[in-house]
């Protein structure tokens, strides 16, 4: 399930069976499910200066993801996600927001397999697309539910496993469209007289390693997202969608087949370094069900 939720100021990757891994559904198998995620941060980086803000307190978001994966073939999977997000600030007067965020659709292709040494090497290619499901407000950071841009990404994933242990390295380039905001001008490092905002493209890396056997996974990971342009939040200013948002996260993830068709997932991650980004902690848990759409053989 290829899902990158680049969500608001506190953007974070929610993982299920994800774009960054090497797991494939078989042909005509459909995996459907949902994840609930809760994220929260109190400190954030204003540019590179770490600070708190007593006028927002902690910013939290509750996220409901409806997700699925379908095996077009044993080698090509389609993945989708529809998230609904609710944000809240624990202090100050600013209102939280809620709504459907960005629907994403992705294709993952298990392009190359080879036995190398004692283990298996696997190369996967991915391409993804996401776009806002509603005309939500992007220009109300950090309480907006998302960034409002339509994104495309291309991804390369390398996986190497020996027996029950594996390591996966995944890298994506995320192309983001301009967004339109409700005001006619805004200040970045200069005044821009337009309601259009050029959003920085992003580079994303993920490295995960752990145990993988018979549908059970236990992984620890480190990931990084880096904006390729954008500007820093000025001293005591509000954040803005086109800030240069960077983050490095560490996390853990488990996946377990309760019964053969029922999968339980859960995980957490934490931002250890950032720029124009909330020091987020995110926990998630979800349940998936695998259905075979194949006509019964003979």
């Amino acid at each position, binding site marked *: 399930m290829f899902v990158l939720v680049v969500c608001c100021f506190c953007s974070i990757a929610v993982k299920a069976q994800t774009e960054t891994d090497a797991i494939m559904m078989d042909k005509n198998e459909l995996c459907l499910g949902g994840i609930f995620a809760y994220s929260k941060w109190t400190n954030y980086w204003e540019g590179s200066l770490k600070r708190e803000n*007593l*006028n927002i307190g902690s910013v939290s978001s509750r996220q409901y993801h409806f997700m699925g994966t379908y095996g077009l073939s044993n080698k090509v999977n389609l993945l989708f996600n529809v998230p609904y997000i609710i944000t809240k600030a624990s*202090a*100050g*007067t*600013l*209102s*939280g*927001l*809620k709504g459907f965020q960005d629907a994403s659709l992705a294709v993952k*292709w298990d*392009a190359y397999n080879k036995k190398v040494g004692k283990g298996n090497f696997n190369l996967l*290619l991915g*391409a993804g*697309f996401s776009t806002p499901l509603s*005309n*939500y*407000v992007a*220009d*109300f950071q950090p309480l907006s539910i998302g960034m409002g841009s*339509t*994104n*495309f990404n*291309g991804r390369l994933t390398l996986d190497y496993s020996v027996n029950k242990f594996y390591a996966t390295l995944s890298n994506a380039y995320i*192309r*983001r*469209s*301009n967004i339109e*905001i*409700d*005001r*006619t*001008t*805004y*200040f970045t490092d*200069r*005044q*821009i*007289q*337009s309601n*259009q*905002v*050029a959003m920085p493209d992003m580079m994303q890396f993920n490295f995960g390693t752990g145990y993988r056997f018979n549908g059970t996974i236990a992984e620890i990971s480190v990931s990084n997202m880096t904006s390729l342009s954008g500007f820093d939040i*000025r*001293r*005591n*200013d*509000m954040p803005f969608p086109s800030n240069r948002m960077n983050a490095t996260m560490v996390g853990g993830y488990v996946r377990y087949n309760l019964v053969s068709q029922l999968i339980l997932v859960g995980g957490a991650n934490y931002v250890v370094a950032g720029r124009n980004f909330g020091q987020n902690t995110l926990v998630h848990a979800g349940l998936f069900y695998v259905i075979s759409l194949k006509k019964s053989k003979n």
Partner: protein
Amino acid sequence: MKKLNAFIYTLILCAAISCKKDIIEQTEGLAALNPTSTDANAGEWKTILLSSGAEIAVPAPLPIADKLYEAELNEIKGLQQNITKDQQKEIDYWAAGGVLRWNEIMRELVAKYNLPPYQNEDGSYPFPQAANPFAYPLFPFSNPPYAARAYAYIAAAQYDALVATWHYKKLYGRLAPYKNTTGINTKVTPTDLPSYPSEAAVLAGTTAEMMKLLFPTEIANIEQKAASHQLSMMRAGAATRSDMLAGEALGRAVAQKFITRARNDKAGAAIGTPASWTQLEDDCKARGEMAWISLESPKRPPMLPGFGKVIPILMPASDLIALRPGPPPLTGSAQLAKETQEVFDFVQKQDRENIRIAHFWADGVGTYSPPGHWNAIAAKDFIAQNLSEVKWSRNMALLNLSMMDAAIITWETKYHYFNGRPCQVKPAIKTYTGTPNFPAYISGHSTFSGAAATVLGYLTPARADDYTKMANEASLSRIVSGIHFRSDCEEGLKVGKKVGEYYINRGNADGAQ
């Protein structure tokens, strides 16, 4: 392999669809200003602080037969050799109109400096210091009252300086360089308006000089822009070096008059003192009303409580203060309960269109403020009207003088009554923009907008209804944002309109109508 190709093509196609990242800004690529009238007699228009356009002496220029003038023409010819792309861009930028461009620069400065200072370790707040402007917090904090006054002083000084310019243009009648020789390419709209002194240099000189008062950390930056304005207009063939020198000197001299005035208008004391802040609270409580408190954490001192004492540039202070409306709904009254409920109902709905309105007009932290927004609205319409620089300036002066007075009477009223915001009265009210750190009644946005729409409706009658609608929406935006009661907004609009009417009278009597 086929699969891989298909995959790559899909990727490229996707990237291409999302490729368009260039943003065309609103006043990019404007044609050169092409006034329908030169307003040749504008030297007789009524000035604001100058006694007349003739008050500041400008020496007579050298006759065009003089060898030195000939040398100046050669300088222009030299500047026009091999004009680079960047130089052409700079010419085109300034040729669209000096008042327009300096107004845009002002809006940018206001946005840049419109940031509330971060608190000290002990929870107190530092204040920007004019005497030490580069220390954090940078001077100034160009909040709405500061911005309204800055826009007004700049616009009024530019106007007086341009009236003086037009006076001397007519008096001396030295025509533009391209009228006096061959071989100069005219990169602005050719005009019969004399070029001595140069209006570009007057605007550059006036504005650069005013920065010494208003944005001291930007003097170096603005001086460079002033030099660029003058050099570009010389390269464009619009004026010679002596046209520029005379203009810049005139502009700076006029600006000095305004600076002297501004230094004594009591704005410097508007921050008040801890004792005066406590006094406001005590006075309000003594009247039996719920006193305003800062909803920021740590509690921030109220914004410029003494701004209501600032002396207006034109309008007699007593006339302005007489516009203060009666009290807001009293604490505990049914009316206040009703208005609080209205705000609560709006914010609870989280209606997308209302949030759009809230954000379109928010003009809060980090923006050019509500007066800046109305300058942007005005500029857009004036561009379409092909006004002369002096007429542009006169219109901008009327608009901005009215908004400075709107700021004064608004702040006077706010601190006279010292009442709380909806989210103070009912903490369950959450807001769609930052809660301003000063009392609610009357709404600054409403007063600014009432004044601006009234003045703009006078200047461009065909758009009067549109301006009224905009003002009403700007006013409403504060209710749906959750930060104002309906009384704040309705009374603000009324007061604003009255301020605007004063400037209609002024406009009818300044000789420019």
